[in-house]
């Protein structure tokens, strides 16, 4: 019988995408649908003196114009994670209004919504809205936001801090260890602000059915149920069972489509006011100005080493921007998703991280592919490579000396870090050894020396990362400030004919759930993949769900489905035992049938399914039907890890960096579909390369974004990157049924420091020790030429 787990099964979702038949939100047209356009602030910080909508209301085709003076003016979107100050003061949580009323807090903040018959009419009328602003000084840098006298983002507080936080060992103990360390490596830099840039812009359609008293919100989201919950219970106060949230095909998320955005709530509210469906699709300029950004940490760090190159202590202070308002998961990103990874893959005995999270006059910062973990990995991996150079050690050797020894989490216990987490299983030496072998590290070092003699600037950079996926369990994250659970829901409905419908709370926006989930369900039930259908993205179909982020779909969502499959098989065995006139314990299940052990007496899955729905000859007291739903709340995070190695050549005349090779050896636990895992790694790696070499959101002093288009914000294009060479080691996760760890973010976490380490390596003989990202030719050339 054909099995599917572990095989590169081609994706079933591809046919519709390749034919242009995907169902993205903007592709949907409803009868009588209107179109919306927003009036957005050109100021980063301003008083709103007056908003005049009279001309706009008279515009051609205009259906309605709303401002904060209307009924929507009292609503605001909430934050989903509370991180209080170290001194016990509650996190400062400003209202995030759907439309700005008295004050503007970032460029692009919406002041009014114009709804018209056509998009052109809505945009024309939006230009007729007259807003009288009084501009005020702004602050956009998280460090400067905490300087005395900095412009306040929210007047009700005495400074811009939203909260401060620390983790790890006692600071004085860490300071003392640094003071007596053999060597101390120091770095100060900015982990720059990035725009996630899913190629599909955010898009929403809200539709109120007056007769049913029900709303439908079509939305490009990564987590439809969470949006429904927030929208109903925390924003508009409308009944959850009267709201359907639908998210069919979504054109990439990378974190930016996790959050509940003001436009979703405003359109939902307005659809009832105008009694017609309303569509709004962001254009790219709006996306730059209003989609949540990532990163933006200002970092100051010291790491102490002994004579052998072993890390003895690590102390870091960071300013991490929150933006003007607290986005859904923003406070968790520079704290519980960041500080908790400061152990890395090393045995560092003393660690302390202090975080100050200021408001800034910018759009919000929230989780972006990796969320806090790329920032932690960048810091650790740059520091250890810098230390190796300073201590005249090989960057691979210093890592081998510091690695946590292998542990499988079964025979050997999980590894307890200094920063709260307990790693599940790991073999960090193996993954770096394999990576070095893939590259041919020894040979490369020889060719590097030869190349330098010929005036060529070649460099190699290593990064060995760990990350935490499938953040859990709910009770623990609740105690850390999460205002939601972090379980997942998976339902398996066996139809009378033995065909299987699976309903998952996970959401696919490129990850291939429709294929991968069907692979393991088919295998576990011993049936054909064609007999399994995966449903997601519609709250009316799927009971509940927490959605997709943090590489959690397979480890958490997949596990919930497995729980339901087990319940199906358990009940099926009772029916089979009855039909076969045997005891349940005498049955075995394989290849889609129950067989009485040692005999040829058997009954198929299909026959048992039919019996469950036509229960004439049926076990006494057993309910008919074969349909189970399960909630799975993991006992721990999962911890994928890997080694990424970059080879670069720097043009000595221009400073341009050319990426010659990129090798990634990752360990994501068991692999369901290697084709998809490789694809996730390749894509993530290139996003991480983007941060290293190209990408940066820049706000000027007045708070204007000067990188707000594809002409100004550089992302990797096909000719910027080489083929990505991938391989794997497999260290199964010991605590979930599939033994999987997650692969969605790994690429973006490991790759960034590997590239920067490679460039610094290429230029180290010129005295270069660090270059601020992104490594533009100008910055690289300046560093090579000593700031000339």
């Amino acid at each position, binding site marked *: 019988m054909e099995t599917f787990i572990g095989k590169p099964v*081609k994706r079933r979702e591809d046919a519709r995408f390749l034919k242009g038949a995907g169902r993205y939100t903007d592709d949907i047209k409803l009868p009588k649908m209107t179109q919306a356009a927003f009036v957005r602030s050109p100021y980063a910080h301003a008083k709103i003196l007056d908003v005049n909508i009279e001309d706009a209301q008279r515009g051609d085709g205009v259906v309605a114009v709303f401002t904060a003076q209307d009924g929507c003016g009292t609503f605001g979107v909430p934050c989903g994670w509370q991180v209080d100050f170290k001194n016990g003061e509650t996190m400062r949580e400003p209202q995030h209004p759907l439309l700005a009323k008295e004050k503007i807090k970032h460029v692009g903040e919406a002041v009014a919504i114009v709804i018209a018959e056509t998009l052109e009419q809505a945009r024309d009328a939006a230009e007729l809205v007259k807003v009288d602003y009084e501009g005020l000084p702004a602050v956009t840098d998280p460090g400067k936001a905490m300087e005395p006298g900095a412009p306040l983002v929210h007047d009700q507080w005495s400074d811009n801090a939203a909260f401060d936080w620390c983790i790890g060992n006692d600071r004085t103990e860490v300071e003392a260890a640094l003071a007596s360390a053999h060597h101390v490596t120091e770095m100060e830099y900015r982990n720059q602000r990035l725009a996630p840039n899913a190629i599909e812009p955010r898009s929403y359609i809200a539709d109120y059915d007056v007769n049913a008293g029900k709303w439908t919100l079509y939305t490009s989201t990564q987590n439809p149920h969470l949006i429904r919950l927030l929208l109903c219970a925390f924003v508009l106060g409308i009944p959850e069972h009267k709201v359907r949230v639908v998210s069919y095909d979504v054109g990439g998320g990378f974190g930016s489509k996790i959050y509940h955005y003001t436009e979703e709530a405003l359109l939902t509210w307005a659809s009832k006011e105008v009694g017609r469906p309303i569509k709004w699709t962001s254009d790219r300029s709006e996306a730059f100005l209003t989609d949540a950004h990532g990163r933006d940490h200002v970092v100051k760090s010291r790491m102490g080493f002994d004579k052998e190159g072993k890390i003895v202590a690590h102390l870091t202070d960071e300013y991490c921007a929150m933006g003007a308002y607290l986005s859904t998961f923003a406070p968790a990103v520079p704290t519980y998703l960041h500080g908790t990874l400061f152990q890395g893959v090393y045995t560092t005995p003393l660690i302390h991280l202090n975080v100050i999270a200021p408001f800034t006059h910018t759009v919000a910062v929230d989780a972006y592919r990796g969320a806090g973990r790329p920032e932690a990995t960048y810091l650790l991996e740059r520091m250890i490579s810098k230390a190796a150079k300073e201590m005249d050690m090989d960057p691979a050797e210093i890592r081998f000396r510091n690695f946590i020894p292998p542990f499988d989490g079964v025979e050997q216990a999980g590894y307890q870090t200094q920063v709260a987490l307990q790693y599940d299983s790991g073999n960090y030496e193996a993954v770096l050894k394999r990576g070095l072998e893939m590259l041919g590290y020894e040979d490369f070092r020889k060719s590097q020396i030869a190349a330098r003699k010929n005036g060529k600037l070649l460099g190699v950079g290593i990064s060995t990362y760990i990350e935490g996926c499938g953040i859990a369990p709910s009770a623990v994250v609740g105690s850390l400030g999460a205002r939601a659970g972090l379980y997942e829901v998976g339902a398996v409905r066996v139809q009378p004919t033995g065909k299987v419908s699976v309903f998952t709370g996970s959401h696919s926006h490129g990850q291939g759930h429709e294929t991968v989930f069907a692979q393991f369900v088919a295998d576990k039930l011993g049936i054909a993949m064609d007999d399994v259908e995966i449903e997601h993205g519609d709250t009316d179909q799927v009971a509940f769900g927490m959605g997709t982020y943090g590489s959690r779909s397979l480890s958490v969502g997949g596990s919930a489905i497995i729980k339901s499959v087990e319940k199906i098989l358990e009940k099926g065995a009772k029916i089979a035992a009855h039909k076969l006139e045997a005891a349940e314990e005498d049955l075995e299940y394989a290849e889609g049938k129950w067989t009485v052990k040692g005999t040829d007496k058997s009954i198929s899955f299909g026959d048992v399914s039919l019996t469950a729905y036509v229960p004439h000859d049926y076990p006494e007291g057993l309910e008919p039907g074969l349909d189970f739903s399960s909630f799975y709340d993991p006992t721990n995070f999962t911890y994928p890890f890997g080694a990424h190695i970059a080879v670069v050549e720097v043009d000595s005349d221009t400073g341009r960096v050319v990426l010659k090779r990129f090798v990634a050896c990752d360990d994501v636990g068991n692999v369901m579909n290697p084709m998809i895992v490789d694809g996730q790694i390749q*894509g993530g790696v290139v996003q991480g390369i983007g941060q290293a070499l190209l990408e940066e959101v820049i706000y000027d002093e007045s708070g204007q974004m000067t990188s707000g288009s594809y002409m100004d914000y550089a992302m990797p294009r096909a000719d910027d990157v080489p083929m990505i060479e991938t391989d794997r080691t497999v260290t199964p996760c010991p605590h979930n049924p599939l033994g999987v760890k997650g692969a969605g973010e790994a690429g973006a976490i490991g790759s960034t420091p590997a590239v920067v380490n490679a460039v610094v390596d290429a230029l180290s003989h010129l005295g270069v020790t660090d270059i601020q990202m992104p490594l533009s030719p100008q910055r690289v050339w300046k560093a090579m030429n000593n700031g000339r």
Partner: protein
Amino acid sequence: MNISITINGKAYDHDIEPRISLAQFLRENLDLTGTHIGCDTSGCGACTITLDGKAVKSCTLLAVQADGCEITTIEGMANGAQMHPIQEAFREHHGLQCGFCTPGMVMTAADILQSNPKPSEEDIRHGLEGNFCRCTGYHNIVKSIQHAAEKINT
């Protein structure tokens, strides 16, 4: 303004506002929603179609500029149930993830292979530089086009 365009072999006659982009016209007036809009400034390439045999970005072309032209969109690539070799190759080699950039990638690939039936990896990467993909890192898109070229040439 009145325009006459042939799209995917079918003739269309429409009266439209001169300011409407070709991409919008395809999506809104003809319901050909396979052509996607990712940026409105020719930066992302999701809206790529072929116009008189050449790949162009339909978001920065006015529909009226296409008057009298022959256009192929992603919907016109397959021959009924039979996918075009480029589409087949993308499926075979996992050249897509979220699928949003995919129509533009396929149309650009068609243009690359038309002008250069045996492109090198460098030729393909250079040919794709007007199209963003945020999911795949381009690795499997390049592989897909390499394999499509082989298939078409045999």
